[in-house]
């Protein structure tokens, strides 16, 4: 038996996952597929319906510990397979090697295949990002006069940047005012960066 599994990132399968295969096998394959649908909804932040889950697991007489374990193991399998970009056939053969019955495996892999790209999109979204820029607001002012000089006649840009603080995840607001020349420099540099980004995509 191969001990390295692609869906575990070419590592050994964790012991607890192996242990919960028998728990999953206690459900009927139809009910397990429906449970997969709920788990995927949870992974995609669409909300898991716990009432449905308890109805699905009531036939197999799952206690609360069993319900938690089955949700945990399905979450792990589906998110780990999406993480390592495993195709549905490989996942199917690896799960069967771990002892999950064929009908259950087929149901799980079908759910996985349907939502494969949605799962990966979600995982991409929650990947670590520091100081996410949330909003940009701007305003152009024209200064007519000031206490230092009677005729100023200068345009300025006011930029309000709302970004996430990297360590506390709270929104921080920064306001900067930029003169026309400085702003031209800023714009040129940013456009160069943008060209580079477009070249990569």
């Amino acid at each position: 038996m191969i001990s390295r599994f692609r869906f575990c990132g070419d590592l050994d399968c964790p012991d607890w996952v192996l242990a919960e295969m028998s728990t999953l096998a206690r459900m009927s394959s139809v009910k397990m597929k429906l449970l997969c649908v709920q788990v995927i909804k949870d992974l995609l932040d669409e909300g898991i319906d716990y009432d449905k889950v308890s109805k699905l697991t009531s036939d197999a007489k799952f206690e609360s510990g069993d319900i938690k374990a089955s949700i945990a193991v399905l979450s792990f399998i589906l998110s780990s397979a999406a993480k390592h970009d495993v195709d549905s056939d490989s996942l199917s053969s690896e799960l069967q090697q771990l002892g999950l019955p064929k009908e259950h495996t087929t149901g799980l892999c079908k759910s996985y295949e349907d939502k494969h790209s949605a799962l990966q999109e979600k995982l991409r979204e929650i990947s670590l990002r520091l100081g996410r820029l949330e909003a940009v607001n701007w305003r152009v002012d024209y200064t007519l006069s000031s206490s230092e000089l009677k005729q100023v006649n200068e345009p300025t840009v006011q930029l309000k940047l709302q970004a996430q603080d990297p360590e506390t995840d709270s929104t921080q607001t920064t306001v900067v005012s930029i003169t026309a020349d400085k702003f031209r420099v800023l714009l040129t540099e940013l456009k160069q960066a943008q060209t580079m980004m477009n070249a990569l995509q």
Partner: protein
Amino acid sequence: MIFIVIFCLSVVGESGRIAVQFLKKGSNPKIYEGAAQPSLKSCRLMLSDVVGKLNVWSGSVQHGLEGLMYLLTESCKLTISEEDFQDSVLVLGFSEELTELLLQLYLENRKEIRQILSKPAPSLPHYHSLEWRLDVQLSSRPLRHQLKPTVTLKLHLEDGARRSAHVLQTDPATLQHLIDELERALAELKSSHCRRILRNIK
């Protein structure tokens, strides 16, 4: 909530039995189920209820509760067996029924109390989770055509109820060094010196 039941018995004796029946049957079962750790507010409400019904000075109720808590925490701390618990309580001179009630209370809640006692206030923040990201810097304002890989880490720590996050950045070589050092630390557990000490503790 059973604290109050028992306290009534001890302070008031026979007449307290009526209060016991009322509290056991009449009171809302939700208070027992819903609150695994009864909220302070519901405790106070029940307390004032009891005080009102039995005409007992609220100060003595307070003392009674504290005495009960001390009894239970000390017994749980030392994991006293049933017989020892019964013997110790008998010395206090309570009735048979009360001793039985106290014993039941002790046995039912022993595990939970031990769990609560086993968590002293943490002095150091401990590991909660780690997020990471691998990036490659391709160009910057002063220099184009670079290839600089960096690993960005966000270490989440927990200190009691407080969560904190620390952002760190490193190049792959330093990361490898970090991994080697940590593996060396783990390997220490397997050294004969460590094993000898662990054996003696167990």
